């Protein structure tokens, strides 16, 4: 056993760049949505610019490149001690469908305990057209790339972190839009 572990630690050091994409074998799924009593086009207008993440409460600042074209990036600086950051990239954008997909390029799992995270946000109109629904769903792996993870980086912790981000952000979006109406 000792021999194997020493082999692994040497491999880890020599393969640091490779580990940027390392993850466990079980992808996790979170999906959250909120109904907002505001027409879809107005809700879409608030969140449609990928560069502008100001509707997400935990984001202090966003430094972006590339607008709404696939490959556009945003560097999010979070409201937390030490101003941690998340780098994200736009994967696809469909204005007609009021939807876009993006992925995290770089994050410290201690800040947001996920790996290989990709997310889609979509606005749809309610049947009567007076309201809308915002759906936000993600696929990702837990923060710990190996087996037998510590509790703060296991599947439950990862799901809880993403769920909280989505719920908090969607509720804040609903509150600000409905409140301003």
């Amino acid at each position, binding site marked *: 056993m000792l021999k194997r572990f020493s082999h692994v630690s040497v*491999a880890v050091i020599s*393969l640091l760049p*490779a*580990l940027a*994409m*390392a993850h*466990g*074998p*079980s*992808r*996790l*799924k979170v999906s959250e949505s909120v109904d907002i009593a505001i027409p879809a086009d107005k809700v879409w207008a608030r969140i449609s610019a990928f560069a502008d993440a100001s509707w997400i409460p935990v984001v202090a600042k966003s430094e972006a490149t590339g607008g709404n074209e696939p490959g556009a990036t945003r560097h999010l600086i979070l409201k937390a001690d030490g101003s941690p950051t998340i780098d994200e990239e736009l*994967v*696809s954008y469909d204005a007609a469908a009021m939807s876009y*997909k993006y*992925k995290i390029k770089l994050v410290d799992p201690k800040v947001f305990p996920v790996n290989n995270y*990709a997310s*889609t946000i979509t606005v749809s109109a309610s049947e009567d057209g007076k309201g809308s629904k915002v759906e936000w*769903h993600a*696929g990702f792996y837990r923060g710990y790339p*190996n*087996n037998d993870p510590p509790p703060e980086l296991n*599947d439950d912790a990862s799901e809880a972190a993403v769920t909280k981000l989505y719920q908090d952000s969607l509720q804040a979006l609903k509150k600000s839009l409905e409140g301003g109406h």
Partner: protein
Amino acid sequence: MAPRPALIVAALLFAGHAEAGDFAFVPAQVANRVSVIALDSMSRVADIPVAGKPAGVAIAQQAGRAYVTSPEGKFVTILDTATQAVVGRITVGSGPLGIAVPPSGAPVYVADWYEHRVYAIDPVRRAVIGSVAVGHSPSGLAITADGHRLLSADRDDDQISVIDTDSMTVRAVIKVGTRPFGITLSADGRRAYTANVGSNDVSVIDLGAQSVIGTVKVGDRPYAVAFASGRGFVTNQYAGTVSVFDEKTLAALSTVTVGDYPEGIEAAADNRSVYVVNWESNTLLRIDANTLKVTARAETADGPRGFGKFVWHRP
């Protein structure tokens, strides 16, 4: 959405009279189930509870067994494909993911994601009978029809390992694109194809020459490859599409829009269609391999992966 007994009976009766009567056994990782889809009617006939975040699957056609890996549970579950019941479990490794079985039905080979090793399992004795070290994070496995050569896509070393199964030794290592995940053999066993998650392409490997002889550009985050009607079909997870290329010329032919996060893909027995598992959408789609249209759709349990060969051709 629990399957009703009457539905199961109806599907079995229907399958018994159909010409093909194939069934898909799709591990649904989020739900901890294996969804069973009757492919003639595209109806979901069972959700079999399988713990440990099931992901990989291989079918012993003659023996009527489906072998399902659970990487978090660290075991392989044995399913009887006719009765759709769990008949056994074999503990193996630290993170069993990719799995393959030769037409003879034994041994069953399992890639261990964390131990960087491929295990051989005797499915009758239900015991590990051998293993071999491969590259980092072995993912997909593919085995030749004669059972003598096993290929491992070693994801985090950007290579495949060619394993001699008689001696359980690595006979060759071939560098491919970035992060190969799924690996598929041609029908004649001479070529292998890897879906490279990191470089968004497919490496075409000549196993005799032990070298990459072609590269096919595909969509974002390719996962696995299947062949039907002289065409290659590649699931692109992030793009939500299947890339289609010509098997002979390797020319890109088309892109088919499917569900979100398409993953496992396999051809039908008649070679005229392919089945695509969509992890985010919880669906199994049938694509006509000639018209490239989606012709049928079935629901699965939550988070289906179907990593490997999941179609059982009912005799």
